[in-house]
């Protein structure tokens, strides 16, 4: 029996979760929500994490009904993410590892999403679309690495949505993307936006500049409603994502798709993906917030896999990095 505790704080969500052999014992999260029109800044986000991490930790241990000596390894997010929040959380993970005298495992955030998705859905070897505020990648496993087949060449899709939400001054509660999704449901008119797919890569920054530029003019001129803009933006961005996922599937001969990351919660994206896979006779794994929205349990799960395959991070290497690619990690816990 191996019990792992995971610490996550690479963006505005602070999470601590405990996993024992594939079973989530607890998964506590506290989200830093900023006023409408504002994004979250590294410094303030780190402060939020510092303010709440001890109470979140207490709650995670209590909910799981686990004492520190029952824990076998402490896992934390090494990256990628925002520097200050990452460090704020890593310090606590390092401290408890030393207090409790437990080995520590540094986890790649992207891989944690994938491993949690595999655990919850039981998917064996899916093509993974990882879409969040900081990441947009199409990933497939090949010879001990999660290889990136396609990705954004500039900003992430979630970032594009969040920044457009700021233009419209939408609320950040529960998340800007959620509020865009609700607006989009009432949109009717499709406004043509740039569509940028380069092979299996995508680009979003041009679309964002374009829509930022036309939004005020079109709204003032009464040509369309904010709902129409949200609708058109989602339709365009998601069509690009589904297209590159399909390209990767055709390229790898895969017939399973798993969507992970915060944007994966979007029901319109799920619906479009389902229409695509059904037409190919493939399957779409169910979506679940345990692997979509950042949380501690997913870090614990990836750390659990690493620890069980014999990986422990030497203490002097337990640092953080803002840049940490999915394909840098040697996957020791899966067959070649």
């Amino acid at each position: 029996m191996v019990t792992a505790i995971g610490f996550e704080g690479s963006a505005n969500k602070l999470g601590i979760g405990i996993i024992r052999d594939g079973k989530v014992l607890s998964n506590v999260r506290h989200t830093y929500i900023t006023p409408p029109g504002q994004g979250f800044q590294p410094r303030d986000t780190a402060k939020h994490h510092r303010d709440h991490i001890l109470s979140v930790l207490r709650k995670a241990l209590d909910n799981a009904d686990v004492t520190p000596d029952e824990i076998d390894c402490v896992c934390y997010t090494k990256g990628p993410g925002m520097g200050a929040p990452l460090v704020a959380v890593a310090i606590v993970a390092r401290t408890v590892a030393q207090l409790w005298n437990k080995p520590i495992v540094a986890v790649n955030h992207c891989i944690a999403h994938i491993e949690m998705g595999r655990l919850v859905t039981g998917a064996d070897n899916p093509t993974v679309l990882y879409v969040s505020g900081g990441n947009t990648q199409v990933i497939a496993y090949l010879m001990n690495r999660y290889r990136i087949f396609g990705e954004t060449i500039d900003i992430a899709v979630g970032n594009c949505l969040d920044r457009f939400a700021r233009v419209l001054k939408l609320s950040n509660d529960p998340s800007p993307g959620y509020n865009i999704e609700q607006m989009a449901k009432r949109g009717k008119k499709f406004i043509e936006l740039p569509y940028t797919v380069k092979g299996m890569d995508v680009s979003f920054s041009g679309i964002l500049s374009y829509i930022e530029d036309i939004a005020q003019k079109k709204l003032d001129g009464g040509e369309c409603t904010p709902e129409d803009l949200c609708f058109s933006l989602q339709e365009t961005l998601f069509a690009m994502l589904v297209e590159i996922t399909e390209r990767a599937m055709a390229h790898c001969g895969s017939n399973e798709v798993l969507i992970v990351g915060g944007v994966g919660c979007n029901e319109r994206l799920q619906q479009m993906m389902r229409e695509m896979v059904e037409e190919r006779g493939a399957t779409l794994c169910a979506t679940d917030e345990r692997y979509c929205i950042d949380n501690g349990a997913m870090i614990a799960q990836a750390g659990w896999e690493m620890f069980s395959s014999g990986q422990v991070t030497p203490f002097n290497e337990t640092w953080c990095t803002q840049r940490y690619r999915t394909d840098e990690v040697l996957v020791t816990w899966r067959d070649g």
Partner: protein
Amino acid sequence: MDVESEGSSALRLIKQGAEARIYAADFLGRPTIVKERFKKKFRHNVLDDKLRHKRTMQEVRSMHRCRKAGIATPTVFFIDSNDYKIYMEEVQNSITVRDYINSLKEDKESNLRKLAKIIGTILASMHNIQVIHGDLTTSNMLLKKTNDIEIADLVLIDFGLSSISSLAEDKGVDLYVLERAFLSTHPNTEDAFKVILDTYKTFKGSSEALKKLDEVRLRGRKRTMVG
């Protein structure tokens, strides 16, 4: 025009690619591949129509432009612009470069080198006529035979994402797309890919595109910074 009544046989589905269905058929007595960009339900109607139209037209234009410059691409027989179907020559007994690389056993190194030189040469001449392929992968290159391969044996297909551009930036991105696809599909072939670029380098006007390639690589998200 109803092509089927004009002497072509029924369409037989061979494969469903990412954005098109590929059929085998017979067009006026010739073995033919029909590429149909069918309607994608998941896309908004307006967007879907625009993309299918644009890509079908661009594919045919780029194939024609490449052929004029002596780069092997399938001959286009007919275009059905209502259903977005392209009728083109079937490259018979061919295999994809991807399958070819995966099948290499003996003399893997020297065969890979030879293939890489051919790919490098073809890419250079394609960029020389300002054609940007847009989706360079080893699945989008066919080999007519597998022994003693020569330049004329490599056929480029799938120009749906292509464009015409003289910008070094676009050429650099084109190479970058291939690099990513090549190395993720065929692990441990860094040396062969280097031969592609080294061959590409010997052509006129290639240095700017290669300089852009270096820039585009650094742009990749979350790259580790060295130095």
